[in-house]
């Protein structure tokens, strides 16, 4: 008998990556998706195609699933395991759904604080953090979409989850909290930081996909520079193994440039305010680097490119309104919440105009 897994979110990770770690011979997947158009298509097709890039080629998997529900239609107590991949802001809408569930719940939400917060809010101790160390596009090349409009492309990644959730099974590395913390730190600052910088720089230059952005030498140079700044920072700060960090960094630059992925700039750049959180991948990264004496020159350019993100359909489209209406000091203090006494504030103010000029010229 197959284990039943309920997946909240049929987006990039949910549809693209999860079918690879829960093979259909052992697991029966169902989805909850609140995008009515996507849900309708899933309900109509009852299957979709996910492609994994491996050794420069695509490997195809047709995923047949049991159900696709609208949020609230599902009965989460009817499953052996639950995965969420809905987005760090949206996951709080699941509090009621998760409150009565006793099976392992694993959150793939790119924020290590969220499992703790949800545990408090639901009163449940079966909520765990997971790190899918993988880039998954939320779309696919046109020829794949012609065959199946639900096609999606993912890397051949690895996935780490707290060992308390081991009953969930799947092709997952269950690790201690200490090991997960190391993997998360590496992912947040060596993957997420340069990844979103590549996206913001690409957005400034009208690029559609990450690999197009990385193909531009001037952008690659800034992304690589940011990666190096974070590598030096992490080695000093967390005593991470130098070889591990160097290996990870090289791997990341190759991932961002993967021409098979078709990873949209809009997906990676979305919600800039979240990424500009005080402890998140941009401001948080630059603060860390300053704390160990590493000058965040390229990170600063990345932060500025996020400030300048101009996408009217983004949830955080109002970053442009605030950038246009406020002086830089006010923007940093009131909107980004950087304290005027901090070194990063002073650095950003000092380099503000120079950074904008640099970014325009890349």
């Amino acid at each position: 008998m197959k284990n039943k897994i309920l997946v909240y979110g049929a987006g990039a990770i949910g549809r693209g990556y999860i079918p690879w770690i829960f093979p259909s011979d052992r697991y029966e997947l169902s989805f909850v998706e609140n995008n009515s158009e996507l849900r309708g298509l899933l309900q109509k097709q009852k299957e979709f195609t996910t492609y994994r890039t491996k050794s420069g080629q695509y490997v195809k998997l047709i995923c047949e699933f049991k159900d696709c529900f609208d949020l609230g239609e599902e009965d989460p107590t009817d499953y052996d395991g639950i995965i969420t991949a809905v987005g760090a802001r949206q996951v709080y809408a699941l509090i009621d759904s998760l409150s009565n569930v006793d099976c392992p719940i694993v959150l793939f939400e790119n924020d290590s604080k969220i499992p703790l917060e949800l545990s408090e809010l639901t009163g449940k101790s079966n909520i765990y953090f997971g790190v899918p160390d993988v880039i998954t596009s939320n779309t696919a090349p046109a020829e794949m979409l012609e065959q199946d409009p639900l096609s999606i492309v993912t890397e051949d990644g690895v996935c780490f989850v707290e060992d308390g959730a081991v009953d969930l099974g799947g092709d997952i590395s269950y690790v201690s909290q200490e090991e997960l913390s190391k993997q998360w730190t590496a992912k947040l600052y060596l993957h997420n930081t340069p990844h979103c910088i590549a996206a913001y720089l690409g957005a400034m230059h009208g690029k559609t996909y990450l690999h197009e952005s990385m193909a531009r030498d001037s952008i690659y140079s800034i992304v690589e520079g940011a990666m190096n700044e974070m590598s030096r920072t992490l080695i000093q700060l967390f005593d991470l193994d130098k070889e591990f960090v160097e290996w990870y960094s090289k791997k990341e630059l190759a991932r961002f440039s993967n021409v098979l992925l078709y990873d949209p700039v809009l997906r990676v750049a979305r919600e800039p305010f979240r990424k500009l959180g005080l402890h998140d991948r941009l401001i948080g990264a630059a603060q860390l680097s300053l704390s160990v004496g590493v000058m965040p020159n390229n990170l600063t350019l990345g932060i500025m490119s996020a400030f300048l993100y101009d996408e009217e359909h983004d949830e955080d489209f109002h970053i442009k309104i605030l950038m246009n209406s406020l002086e830089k000091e006010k923007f940093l203090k009131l909107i980004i919440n950087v304290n005027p006494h901090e070194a990063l504030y002073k650095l950003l103010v000092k380099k503000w105009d120079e950074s904008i000029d640099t970014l325009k010229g890349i």
Partner: protein
Amino acid sequence: MNRLEIAINAAVSAGDLLMDHYGKVYGIKNKESLRDVVSEIDELSESKVMSILQESDPGCTVLTEEKGLIGPDSDSRWIVDALDGTVNYIHNIPFFCVSISYWVDNRPSIGAIYNPYSGDIYYAEKGVGCFVNQKRLHLLDVELGNNLTAMAFSGKAYNPSMRSTEFGIFGQLNDLSQGCLRTGSAAMNLSYLSHGKFSLVMGKANKLWDVAAGLLIAEEAGADVKFNMTDKQKHLVDYIAATPSSKKKIYTDIDMSYFDL
């Protein structure tokens, strides 16, 4: 800058000026009642806002608290209260703000409210949404009994024969909720409603500039908002803004006929 950006820029610039002078004593004049005072800083702040509006939106029409209507007579106009909560301000109570809105055909289309003490910028555009600083606001339907409320009466419309009615409603609202506040700033009341800190805000004969931005901010956050210009010459407004369940509750439990809505 577009008009929303102009409104935010002007509100924050004037708010900075208010903070530069906060805690200092200024010449105070009574206007129409003991509580309705104007200080030098009101006028300074208004001058700051006016200079930004006239530079950024040349030829515009502006209705201000201190100087009345400025510019050509038009139904598309800026409405400015450069210091809402003057009494709080002069008593060093940090609950005051700058309120700037743009109205088209007697309806609000843009609003910005800045409390310089807390650093909160509330802003909204019709049909686009409501925000405080970087955060989008979505009002939850919190019931009246589970939250605070606020009510604002106007000193200028003081009507001794109705005073007991006003305080009667205030008392009823106080008992139906976790407390009814009279904060001294109608604009901040509406901002706090949009932020979920109040579940209901209402006012009788408030000046339009006190609530012009806040009504839109509350509505765009998801509040049920109703207002009526009861005296166009004096710019008086009656209004209620609330979570849907709170509004339903008071229309069931309180005689609301005193409000011309």
